[in-house]
């Protein structure tokens, strides 16, 4: 199967306000290229068949230049190229300057997950939730290396750079769930840095926002912790079944002695776990690199409690 059931031969389905315009430009270049390629291919085949070398051929002469021809084949591509340039540039301006009334969401890239902060204080990990039919402005930065924020279905992409904000925006025209990829190579977990954008109807979005800030309500600490372990991407580096990954497994660490890189050891109690989450570089477990990012500012106290309760339960 070469083709998806949706989208064109080349492009995935488009779901943002400007995806259709990008596709038109793409198709225009595609058709112009097809014509140009056809001329070259047809020319090669025709000339090769028509002027195949015959034995005992004498002098062959043909034109060695022709001003008229040369002007034609310089001017036509030039005009074409100028059209494509202006078209591409105008659309790009539109794609890079968000409308004034756009909803602003803060995006943070980090090895190897995305965090999203919403205006009312809610935050999510690896899942961007937005309302349909409303422009959304993304204000992005990175905590470590350069990442790239890419939503193919919306035709947007922008690098996410440490110590600098970059901006992109979109307006989804349809509810649904779409992929977010990291496109700037960022090391071992680069290809796992896949997130989702969930487009909700206006009402559902507002409901979600409210429940988002009150996440975990009505759940036991342990259950909430289990949920956070996945949604906050602990799972990308730590297993719960005892297998070592980028980081040590969380199975049966609570209450046990942990060997540290500097040779000492420490008893894994609540404070040790809290410190490992908020200030991971402070004490490194022997045999692992100090690659864990800090969750300072990402997890609130209740969430920390929940994670600790969950880790305690991993017997």
């Amino acid at each position, binding site marked *: 199967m070469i083709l998806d059931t949706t989208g064109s031969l080349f492009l995935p389905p488009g779901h943002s306000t400007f995806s259709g315009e990008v596709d038109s430009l793409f198709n225009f270049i595609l058709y112009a290229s097809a014509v140009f390629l056809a001329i070259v291919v047809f020319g090669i085949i025709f000339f090769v068949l028509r002027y195949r070398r015959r034995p005992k051929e004498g002098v062959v002469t*043909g034109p060695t230049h022709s001003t008229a021809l040369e002007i034609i084949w310089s001017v036509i591509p030039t005009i074409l190229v100028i059209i494509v340039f202006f078209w591409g540039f105008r659309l790009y301006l539109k794609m890079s300057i968000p409308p004034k009334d756009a909803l602003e969401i803060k995006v943070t890239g980090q090895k190897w997950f995305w965090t999203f902060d919403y205006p009312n204080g809610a935050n999510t990990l690896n899942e961007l939730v937005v309302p349909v039919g409303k422009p959304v402005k993304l204000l992005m930065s990175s905590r470590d290396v350069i990442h790239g924020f890419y939503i193919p279905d919306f035709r947007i*992409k922008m690098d996410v750079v*440490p110590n600098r904000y970059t901006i992109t925006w979109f307006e989804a025209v349809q509810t649904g769930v779409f992929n977010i990829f990291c496109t700037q*190579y*960022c090391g071992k977990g680069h290809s796992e840095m896949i997130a989702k954008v969930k487009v909700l109807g206006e009402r559902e979005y507002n409901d979600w926002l409210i429940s988002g800030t009150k996440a975990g309500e009505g759940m036991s600490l342990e259950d909430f912790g289990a949920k956070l372990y996945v949604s906050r991407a602990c799972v990308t580096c730590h297993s719960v079944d005892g297998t070592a990954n980028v980081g040590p497994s969380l199975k049966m660490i609570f209450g046990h002695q942990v060997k540290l890189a500097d040779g000492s050891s420490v008893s894994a109690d609540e404070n040790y776990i809290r410190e490992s989450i908020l200030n991971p570089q402070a004490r490194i477990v022997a045999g692992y690199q100090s690659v864990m990012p800090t969750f300072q500012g990402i997890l609130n106290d209740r969430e920390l409690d929940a994670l600790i309760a969950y880790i305690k339960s991993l017997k």
Partner: protein
Amino acid sequence: METLSERNYLNEPRGWKSWIFTLDHKRIGVMYLIAIMASFLLGGVFAMLIRMELLHFGGKHLMGAQTYNQVFTLHGAIMIFLFIIPSIPAALGNFVLPQMLGAKDVAFPRLNLASFYIYVFGALFAVYSMSTGAVDTGWTFYTPYSTTTNTSVISMTLGVLILGFSSIFTGINFIVTVHKLRLPGMTWYKMPLFVWSLYATAIIQVLATPILGITLILLMLERTFGIGIFDPAMGGDPVLYQHFFWFYSHPAVYIMILPAMGIISELIPVFSRRKIFGYKAIAFSSLAIAFVSFLVWGHHMFVSGQSQYAAMIFSFLTFLVAIPSGIKIFNWLATLYKGSISLAVPMLYSLSFLFLFTIGGLTGMFLGALATDVHLHDTYFVVAHFHYVMMGGTVMAFLGGLHYWWPKIWGRMYSEFWARISAVLVFLGFNITFFTQFILGAKGMPRRYYNYLDQYQPLHAYSTYGSWILALGFIIMAVYLIHSLVKGRRAPDNPWQSLGLEWTNSSPPPPENFTVTPKLTHGPYDYDKIVSGDSTG
């Protein structure tokens, strides 16, 4: 088996020492040829590993994520720095440039030998880096990833830095050779177009390579001493590295493609037995491309957060530099018109070049246009695009040139039959491997991915199957070429009835290139004045 009894550069002087201390540009060219072919093999093995891993058939992995990252980095770095940049100029260029000018050698034979050993030394460094925890940054070494990863960035970049010196020395040598050692009567307009293209390339090599050197030195300093120039934590700018890097590496793309265009401009007239169409347009557009190539580096950074104004300028200049390349394609096509076309193997590669390079160039339009680049940047579309340009363009031209000059270099003919089979396999395999990647990329598959979503699996599988056909083509090529060295038919002095000066000497040429000083009786492409067939020895 016939033997090569007469005196030629291969058998005189004798002994291995006479090779490693040789000052003969032909021997240096041959040593380069062997070295770059070895690099191509190594890079090719890594390419096959990448493709095997990406097959993911039944969810199976061949290697871990970290290994994969190292493999694609080594593949890219070896192909670019060890193979394609030196391939045409240093190997084929070294062999034929002085002969095409009617000269005895290049201007600075000792510098030429030195640049070969510098190349070997740099290559050893780069290869050594594999044993010390191979780099995993991608061949572009972007900061801040490259300053923080714990793989051996330093020994690889040091290797590349050293290779840069080799490139600069070759460039200087060629520029002076072209200016000073042309046969009396060979005016600039009587120079073969391959020489023009090597000249334009040499200018870029000399002007752009030092920038790469400085960039890599800054990177090494940053890594070892934390000077902070690219480090955001110290007020540095991580994107600055990208500006520096592409300020070299974009012109470097033309170091790769201009010599290829030069070869095509040689081959098409010979095998069409026609004067080249638009000689001056081709010659000057090489220089124009060399010049403008310095002004477009920013098109690699349309989504890096640079200003919209900068993006506009770079997009505009990019389209400007595309036009002369497009015009060249029409010139080559027009040369076929009313020709007497022979489909010998070098011509098959030239026609492959025309087709593949056209696709490579046209897909550049999608990337030069800002709005579409946003979607396609850093996806497999880009991977396909640059393989069409670098492999479909430069490697095809290199192979065309290799088959064309093979009889001159070794005095032996290869099997035309097997060479055709191989050329067809390479062409088919290449297209299957890389055309699918345009579709993959347009559908949103990012590059440098060890894992991917299942929806991309079928296209990845086609690409991998294509790479096996491609590899088979290359294996056959290796077999018949090596076979020709031992069992090949004795090559005539001028098997293609070419008018190039290098074909007026014997095959292989004598150590001093020409036993009698050649006389310039006609231009390099005056097939209309010379009755074909009677110039053969």
